[in-house]
């Protein structure tokens, strides 16, 4: 604890958050909207990093968990109209269940097979949504009657507050004793067990935590946008964005994932004048980062102490 209070990084982080909180005073609604979405994506990526970077499980379909949370909340709101936080909680619960469902094959399969299961999960969810279009609005999507707020500034603060809270929780978890055990479990299962840790238990927990944050963030995103559709929360390309943001920012840093997401979404927006090519440029940059800086932007800085 003491070392934390003395570290300059903490004060930089606090300063950044304060500046971010003050942005609505200067920026217009459009940019605030972009940042709002970026902050929710930040949570998606941090949740992914916890699972990959710490528990060592590659989830190629994070949108399975995000989508479960989002659509559960949306359907509940449409059908029964309970308050938003109830819908969000329901979304979280269903997402956690989804996390458990994914955890089971993860423990039995390895290598490309588990990655495939996660991809297939997304495809199945996607198809399920299209089939049950009566409830889900199918490929077109659905709207939700409630939203968090109509004011861009308020929405922005909800998102920022949510991001900061999740960042503290997830980062704290990653640095805690439990985080250390997760890292060991992900890096070297046999060694972790030989040291007395029930790796299965910890991995399932990691899946559930990742699912919890993904589901809540997914639901909150819906109540920000007012709509839910396959293209915005389920499509594989969304999942790819989440993964790339985490890799760009630096695996196993948690905070890097959030930064990566913000960077990615801002960059895509910034390049919008290029039309469709903005995705091309962003993907090309991401590819270059993978090839030349596999530790990611933040990872490169943070890993300096580990190298000779």
């Amino acid at each position, binding site marked *: 604890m003491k070392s934390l209070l003395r570290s300059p990084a903490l004060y930089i982080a606090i300063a950044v958050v304060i500046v971010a909180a003050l942005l609505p005073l200067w920026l217009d609604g459009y940019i605030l909207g972009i940042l709002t979405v970026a902050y929710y994506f930040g949570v998606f990526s941090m949740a992914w990093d916890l699972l990959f970077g710490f528990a060592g499980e590659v989830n190629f379909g994070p949108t399975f968990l995000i989508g479960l949370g989002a659509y559960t909340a949306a359907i509940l709101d449409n059908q029964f109209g309970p308050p938003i936080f109830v819908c969000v909680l329901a979304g979280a619960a269903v997402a956690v269940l989804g996390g458990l469902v994914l955890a089971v094959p993860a423990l039995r399969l390895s290598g490309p097979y588990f990655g495939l299961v996660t991809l297939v999960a997304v495809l199945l969810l996607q198809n399920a949504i299209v089939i049950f279009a009566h409830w889900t609005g199918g490929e077109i999507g659905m709207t939700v009657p409630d939203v968090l707020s109509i004011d861009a500034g308020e929405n922005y603060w909800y998102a920022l507050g949510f991001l900061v809270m999740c960042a503290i929780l997830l980062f704290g978890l990653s640095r805690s004793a439990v985080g250390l*055990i997760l890292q060991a479990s992900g890096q070297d299962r046999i060694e972790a067990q030989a040291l007395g840790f029930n790796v299965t238990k910890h991995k399932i927990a990691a899946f559930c935590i990742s699912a919890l944050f993904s589901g809540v963030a997914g639901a909150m995103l819906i109540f920000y946008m007012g709509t839910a559709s396959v293209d915005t929360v389920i499509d594989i390309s969304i999942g790819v964005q989440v993964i790339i943001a985490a890799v760009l920012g630096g695996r196993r840093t948690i905070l890097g994932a959030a930064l990566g997401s913000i960077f990615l979404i801002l960059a895509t927006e910034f390049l919008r004048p290029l039309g469709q090519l903005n995705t091309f440029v962003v993907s090309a940059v991401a590819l270059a980062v993978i090839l030349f800086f596999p530790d990611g932007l933040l990872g490169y800085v943070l890993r300096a102490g580990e190298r000779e």
Partner: protein
Amino acid sequence: MNAPVRLRVENLTKRYGGLIAVKNVSLELRAGEILGLIGPNGSGKSTVMKLMMGIEPVSGGTIKLGDADVTQWPSHRVARAGVGIVFQHSRPLHRQTVLENIKLALLPDSLIRLFADRDVDTRARAIADRVGLSAVVNRHPSTLPFADLRRMEMAKAIARDPQVVLVDEPFAGLTLSEVAAFSDLIRGFRDEGRAVLLVDHNVKSVAALVDRVFAMYLGERIAEGTADEVMQDATVRRVYLGGEIAASHKRAEAGAHKPPLLKVEDVSVFYGKAQALDTVSLNVGQGEFVSIVGLNGAGKTTLFNAMSGLVPYSGKIDFGGQDLSRLTAGGIARHGLVQCPEGRELFGDLSVEENLDLGGQHLTAVRRREQLSWLLEMFPILRERRTQAARTLSGGEQQMLAIARALMMDPKLLILDEPTLGLAPVILEQLGRALEKLRETSPITVVLGEQNVTFALPHADRVYVLEHARIVWEGDSQRFAREMGTGYL
């Protein structure tokens, strides 16, 4: 022996499909005692250790820790019950410091306890101090020398004060002075009243340290007793040495004046931090048969892999005037230096004939047919099995196929790495005869790497002894029989 039994294993058996890796092994680990579990590769000793730790499920028999039956327990439960293990290969968490690695070993298996107890830090430092890591507690594993990584593994294993400590290959990769320091550390564990199990290839290297020895071969116990008793045991000597030693009747030729075909100069190889070869120099003359003798883990395979261009090395290897570092691995084989590796590396799903055919791809069609018929004559069993998948052949047949396939390349120099590993004596005879015939009928140069001295000696013109990554002896085979024969083990 009045000391209480900490770990008792009874009729332990482990089957992998049709292969029986461990057969009815029974032994006891007592408090305040170091037991050496010795055996060559494939003897089952590492498997026994893994079974004790719960890393692999048992096929039969029981394991008791104190009064508790732990046979079915998963390894994390066994660990918490008081067993610590030091694996052969260090397994640090690279992103954490040494101190954090040790702290991990002290943490409870809890999902909820986010913060470690206050005394964890103190205890971790104490343990680091005990194993000699105080100076480097805040460094990351990738910055540490090899020996310190091994110390860290020891620290993790004893962190929770286990009653039983299992150590796999305690001295592999260490210098002599480091070996002494580690021996003291292990003796310390024993003197604290723990039961210690050391698993190793070589009785000699742990003789000074162990109180008792349990020798294994092909999954079974072959001898038990003090280190001296086991080293003198007839079965053990046969298994390790292959029986009586008879030197060949050939002498080192006066052809020592000719420039050597293969010249190895000051070659060193590191696997990460571990030194597998330490400035090894040797040479092989045209038409010679040189045996490189050494136990498992001495460095023979590493040496051959350096020659074949499969591992990076420092130093120089010269073959027929050509500096091998300029060629790719495939190029070296094409150049005439062909290895028949320890693992045989056959194409299991392809037939015997297809395997041989692939070996002969660099020859003309005519030459290939000649070579094939020559080899099928030398190894008639392969002619019988020519359309069978290589995977379905017995161990001895696979070895012959591997050698024949290497010979299909019409090599100038053939390296044979441990061809006798796991083979029955009858097959060894056949193999020996085939090698003799080879020497008689062709001008080929052969380098044979073997642990089985009885097999290696009769064919050899000269012998090198490789021990702990260094060449410790060289000379002709008759001198070897005189000087090294009895003391070799």
